[in-house]
C-alpha cells in the first residue's frame, strides 16, 4: 500500500481511493465484455456447438475467440446511428446512459475483499467506506432505477413493440421488487444492520444461503427478474415483440444496451455473493481476518464469476415464462414465500 502510494506521489488514503475507483468501474467494464463472450461460448457448449472462436489478434493470437467482444464493439462503432422518425430525440439519446449508469453504481458499496490495516490506518475494500448511511440500500435503490432506462428507451423510440416491452418490463420489475425487498429484510434482521461489511462479517457464523435458504431462493429468482434475464426477459422477448425496448436502437447505443445487460448480471451476482454466499469469505474457515487481502479479493471474484455463470446457464436451460405466469409467480408465490420467510426468521430470533 505504502509503496503504491509512494510511486503515485499520493497519500495512502488517496491512492487507495484511486485503486478502489479503478476496481469498482473496471470490474464491470472488463467483466461485461468477457461475459458476452462467455455467454456465447457457454451457450454453444450447452447446445453442443462451438461458438465464436475465430477472432484473432493480428490474424494469429486466437485465445479461443476471447477477442470477439472487441471485434463486436469495433463493429458497433462503424454502424449507422439511426434515430427513427417521431422519436423523442433527447430521451432517445439519454436512455442508454440511463440504463447503463445505475447498472454500474451497484458495485459501489460491495466489499470486494478483507479490510486491512496499513501504517496505522484501516483501509476498507469497498468504494464507499462502511458507515456511509446507505449500505445495502444503495444497490437496491439504484437497481430499481434501472427500469427507467428500459422505460425511457421504450417510450422515446416511438415504436409499438418497444412500448409493449417497456411496459412489461416495468410491471415485472415492480412486482418482483417487493419479494426481493422482503427477502433482504430478513437478512438485515439477522445481521442487525444493513451495511454490507456488517453482513459479510455476520456470515462468519455461517453463510446466509444455509441460514435462510428460502430467502436465498426468492432473492435469486427475483434477481433474474431484476436483471431482465431469461426466464424473465420480458423487456426483449424476441419471439413476441421483435426486440422489445431496444428494437429501434442501433450502433453503439445498442452496444451499450447490450453491455448494460451484462453489467446488470455482474451487479446481481455481486449482491448474491455479498448477501448469501459470504462475500469474500472462504467456506469452512473460522478466523479469516488474517487471510491475504488479495486472496480474499480473488475469492470474491471467483464467486462472482461462478454466479454469473449460473445466470448464463439458466438462460440456456429455461424457456421464457408466459406473462400471466410471471405475474402469478411474482405476486402469488414469491411474495408469500418471502413474507413467510421473514416471519419465520423473526420468530426464530424472538428468544435472542
Amino acid at each position, binding site marked *: 500500500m505504502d509503496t503504491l502510494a509512494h510511486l503515485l506521489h499520493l497519500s495512502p488514503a488517496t491512492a487507495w481511493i484511486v485503486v478502489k475507483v479503478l476496481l469498482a468501474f473496471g470490474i464491470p467494464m472488463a467483466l461485461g465484455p468477457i461475459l458476452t463472450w462467455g455467454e456465447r461460448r457457454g451457450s454453444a457448449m*450447452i447446445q453442443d456447438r462451438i461458438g465464436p472462436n475465430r477472432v484473432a489478434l493480428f490474424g494469429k493470437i486466437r485465445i479461443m475467440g476471447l477477442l470477439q467482444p472487441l471485434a463486436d464493439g469495433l463493429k458497433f462503432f462503424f454502424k449507422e446511428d439511426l434515430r427513427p422518425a417521431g422519436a423523442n430525440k433527447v430521451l432517445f439519446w439519454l436512455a442508454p446512459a440511463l440504463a447503463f449508469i445505475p447498472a454500474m453504481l451497484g458495485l459501489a458499496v460491495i466489499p470486494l475483499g478483507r479490510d486491512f490495516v496499513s501504517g496505522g490506518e484501516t483501509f476498507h475494500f469497498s468504494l464507499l467506506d462502511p458507515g456511509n448511511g446507505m449500505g445495502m440500500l444503495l444497490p437496491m435503490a439504484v437497481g430499481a432505477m434501472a427500469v427507467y432506462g428500459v422505460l425511457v428507451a421504450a417510450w422515446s423510440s416511438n415504436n409499438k413493440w418497444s412500448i409493449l416491452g417497456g411496459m412489461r418490463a416495468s410491471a415485472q420489475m415492480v412486482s418482483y421488487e417487493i419479494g426481493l425487498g422482503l427477502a433482504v429484510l430478513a437478512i438485515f434482521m439477522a445481521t442487525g444492520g444493513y451495511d454490507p461489511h456488517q453482513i459479510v462479517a455476520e456470515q462468519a457464523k455461517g453463510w446466509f444461503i444455509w441460514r435462510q435458504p428460502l430467502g436465498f431462493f426468492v432473492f435469486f429468482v427475483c434477481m433474474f427478474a431484476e436483471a431482465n434475464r431469461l426466464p424473465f426477459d420480458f423487456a426483449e422477448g424476441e419471439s413476441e415483440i421483435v426486440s422489445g425496448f431496444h428494437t429501434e436502437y442501433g450502433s453503439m447505443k445498442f452496444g451499450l444496451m447490450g453491455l448494460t445487460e451484462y453489467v446488470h448480471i455482474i451487479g446481481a451476482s455481486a449482491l448474491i455473493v455479498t448477501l448469501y454466499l459470504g462475500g469474500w469469505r472462504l467456506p469452512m474457515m473460522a478466523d479469516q481476518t488474517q487471510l491475504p487481502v488479495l486472496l480474499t479479493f480473488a475469492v470474491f471474484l471467483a464467486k462472482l464469476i461462478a454466479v454469473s455463470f449460473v445466470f448464463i*446457464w439458466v438462460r440456456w436451460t429455461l424457456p421464457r415464462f408466459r406473462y400471466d405466469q410471471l405475474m402469478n409467480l411474482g405476486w402469488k408465490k414469491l411474495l408469500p414465500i418471502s413474507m413467510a420467510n421473514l416471519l419465520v426468521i423473526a420468530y426464530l430470533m424472538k428468544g435472542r
Partner: protein
Amino acid sequence: MAAAHKVVVKKAELSWLDRLYVVSVAKGMGITFAHFLKQIATPTRKRYTIQYPDMKKEMPKGYRGLHELKRFEDGAIKCVACFMCQEACPARCISIEAEEFSELTYTQGFEEKRPAKFKIDMLRCIYCGMCEEACPKDAIWLRNDYELAAYDRLSMAFGKWDLINTYADQDGKATLTAETESPTTPRRTVAL
C-alpha cells in the same frame, strides 16, 4: 359417413411437485450442464461441428461429386469417345467431339478414337452418376470432390483437361495442365 368421433383432449394435470418448478428446473439444469461438460471435454476434431475451411468432411464411398476422366499409366486417355455418357446424361450436360488419332486407323484397320473435346457443363450436371454407369471403358468417374463453386459461369464449363486433372488429390499421377501437349503417341504403340 361414419359417426363423428368425439375426441376429448384432456389438459395434462401437473402434480404439485411439477407446479413448484424447482424439481423440473433442477432436472433441466442438470441436463444442460452435462452437455456443457461433455462438449468442453471433447477435443475439437471429435465434435459434431466440422470447422469447414480447416477441417473437411470425409465423404462416404458412393458419393458423387466432380467428374474425372481416367487415364492409363502412360497418360493416354481411357475415353474412346463412344458417346454413351452423352446419350445417358439426363441433364444433357456432356458434349463430346471425337477424333481419329492413330496411323493404325488407316494402315491396319484399327478404329482408334478419342475425344477431341469433352465438355461438361457443371451448372447443368445433376451428379446422378449415369455417365459413370454408362461408360463401357470405366473412363469417367465421379469423385468425392464437392467444392464446386466459381465466380462466373464460364469457369463452370469444364473441358477435357479440366476433367483430367484439376483435382486436389492427384492419385499420384503426373499433373497435366492445359499447356501440356496432348499425348500424340497412341497407347497401343507405346504398349507394343
